[in-house]
């Protein structure tokens, strides 16, 4: 990873909101003031404090935190919708602080796509014109725009709605249009600001699946904001936990769940009780979906360790750790499901799936 330039890198990023921004910053740098001291002395709110991270090519990087934790502010630095008070953002190795207005616009139109929490589709434009907006401002002609927009809609299964308007669509469909708009310009980086939070749970799940599938096929570097640990575990290759503008911990879902950096993270991932409650049948995935995602031959599949459907999570974890492979769930001699380490983690973090 160190060898190639990461598509997105932030180094020592600070954002201070308030009239005394400059002065507050100086004291933060010189005297190492804390956020509370900054607020008391200057009346300035620290939105992002000293954020440093890198996102590798093709990676899905989740930023998780409660509302007000600064995650939306942080992500807006990456396409420079917000100007940092201090620190740098590198996109494909280039410091975008040094970009002029024209290059920034080009970056936003061609390199970075964004999906918003409340869809933010333009009500006076048809779906085609919503999706093609980024192409339009790049000066691409109407025929070409329409072609690309239709292809993108096709991917999201909304081609029949191409000339309709956003207000004619349900929330879930609108957000699919939001995603289509973000990927229409074929950007290498996707920013997703709580894209599924405003949707009801069933639709959310469906869109998460669709997004994961899409993400596997198009391979975009994605920064995904969420306030939902379950979602972060499901989607993220790595997760950054944010609180009060500070990134507390960055790690794989396993690392976050297994070894939380402090109490704050630990409270998020507390799933200890579930270990004794959940059983194999409630966390397993269907055999077909496992085999579709993991092409191994029948002999190898049958050789996987097996557990009983009623085995509790803590028992499965033991078996899975010993075997270091996915585990088959066998009922009456028949394989009814498979549990991967990710299924286990989801079982621990999902709030209410007691079985």
């Amino acid at each position, binding site marked *: 990873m160190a060898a190639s330039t990461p598509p997105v890198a932030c180094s020592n990023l600070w954002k201070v909101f308030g009239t005394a921004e400059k002065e507050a910053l100086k004291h933060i740098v010189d005297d190492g003031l804390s956020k509370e001291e900054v607020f008391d002395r200057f009346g300035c709110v620290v939105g992002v404090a000293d954020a440093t991270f890198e996102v590798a090519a093709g990676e899905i990087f989740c930023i998780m935190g409660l509302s007000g934790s600064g995650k939306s502010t942080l992500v807006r630095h990456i396409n420079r919708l917000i100007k940092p008070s201090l620190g740098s953002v590198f996109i494909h190795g280039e410091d975008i602080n040094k970009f002029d207005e024209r290059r920034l616009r080009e970056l936003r139109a061609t390199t970075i796509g964004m999906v918003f929490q409340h869809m*933010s589709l333009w009500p*006076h434009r048809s779906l085609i014109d919503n999706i093609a907006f980024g192409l339009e401002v790049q000066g691409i002609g109407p025929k070409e725009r329409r072609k690309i927009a239709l292809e993108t809609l096709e991917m999201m299964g909304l081609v029949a709605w191409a000339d309709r308007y956003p*207000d004619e669509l349900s929330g879930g469909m609108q957000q699919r249009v939001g995603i289509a708009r973000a990927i229409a310009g074929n950007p290498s980086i996707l920013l997703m600001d709580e894209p599924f939070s405003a949707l009801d749970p069933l639709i959310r799940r469906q869109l998460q699946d669709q997004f994961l599938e899409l993400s596997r096929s198009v391979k975009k570097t994605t920064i995904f904001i969420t306030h939902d640990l379950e979602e972060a575990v499901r989607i993220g290759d790595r997760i950054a936990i944010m609180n009060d503008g500070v990134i507390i911990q960055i790690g794989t879902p396993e690392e976050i769940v297994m070894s939380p950096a402090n109490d704050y993270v630990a409270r998020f991932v507390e799933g200890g009780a579930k270990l004794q409650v959940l059983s194999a049948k409630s966390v397993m995935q269907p055999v077909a979906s496992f085999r579709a995602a993991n092409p191994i031959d029948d002999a190898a599949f049958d050789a996987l360790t097996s557990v009983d459907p009623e085995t509790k999570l803590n028992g499965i974890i033991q078996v899975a750790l010993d075997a270091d492979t996915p585990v088959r769930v066998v009922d009456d001699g028949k394989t009814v499901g498979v549990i991967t380490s990710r299924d286990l983690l989801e079982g621990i973090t999902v709030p209410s799936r007691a079985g």
Partner: protein
Amino acid sequence: MEFIKDPFEHLRIPIGDWTEYVLQLLVTNFRWLFQALREPVDFVLGGLEGLLTQAPPLLLLVVFTLFAWQIAGVRVMAIALACFTTIGLIGAWEEAMTTLAIVLTSILYCSAVGIPLGVASARSNTFDKWLRPVLDLMQTIPSFVYLVPVVMLFGIGNVPGVIVTIVYALPPVVRLTNLGIRQVPKDLTEAALAFGASRGELLRKIEFPLAMPSIMAGVNQTIMMSLSMVVVASMISVTGLGQMVLRGIGRLDVGLATVGGLGIVLLAIAIDRVSQGFAQDARSRNHLKWHEAGPIGLVRKLVINKKHSE
């Protein structure tokens, strides 16, 4: 002692003298500038007035009716037809056309000046802060007060009439443009910037279309205010319906005043309804494009159907 009892007897700001002095200065040194300002107004007003008063009334009636249908639908077409027919029947057609030319010219210049001012004050809070009291002044100062200076600088007739009307009718379009642009949801403008739009593209492609109902409401208010200015403006010998009313009052001719007054009301109803057609948002028009509705839409449909059947 006297002084303490009534200080205003001795202390006086000679505001009247100052005004006269400044005005005199302007008239003697800068009259050419104000005369030059007349030119563009004269140009548009002359053309419109010539067109509207020279064209045959029946032709105009048909054009107005079709225009109303195109812009605001069948119901408004019926209203406009009824209004203009009545204006003709009560014998106020020619005066109404002169007034219409004056009102249209005022609207044109009010929009041309007011909409950019509104955008500027939506963009900059400082500009807004300075412009607001000026607009307040323009709306509250009685129009009779600036009637005399305008005559001294611009002369009399229809062109100064339009200028007086612009001063009076400009504020609403500025205010409502400002409001409309400020009311565009922030997430929608942010999304446009996130996809690489420049400030100009943001304004043209996102903010203007979304603020259009509000801007058109402002234009509509401007229209109504310029119509209400018609009688006052006739005091500086602006012709048209206002002059009918003024002459009626002067001669105690109630009949003439009524014809003029009724003409103004009917003209106001017709223009108001048609201009509200512009203010409809896309959703209430079922997202139809302008060329898909009204008489043009009908013709288009017929032509396309014919092509298909051949």
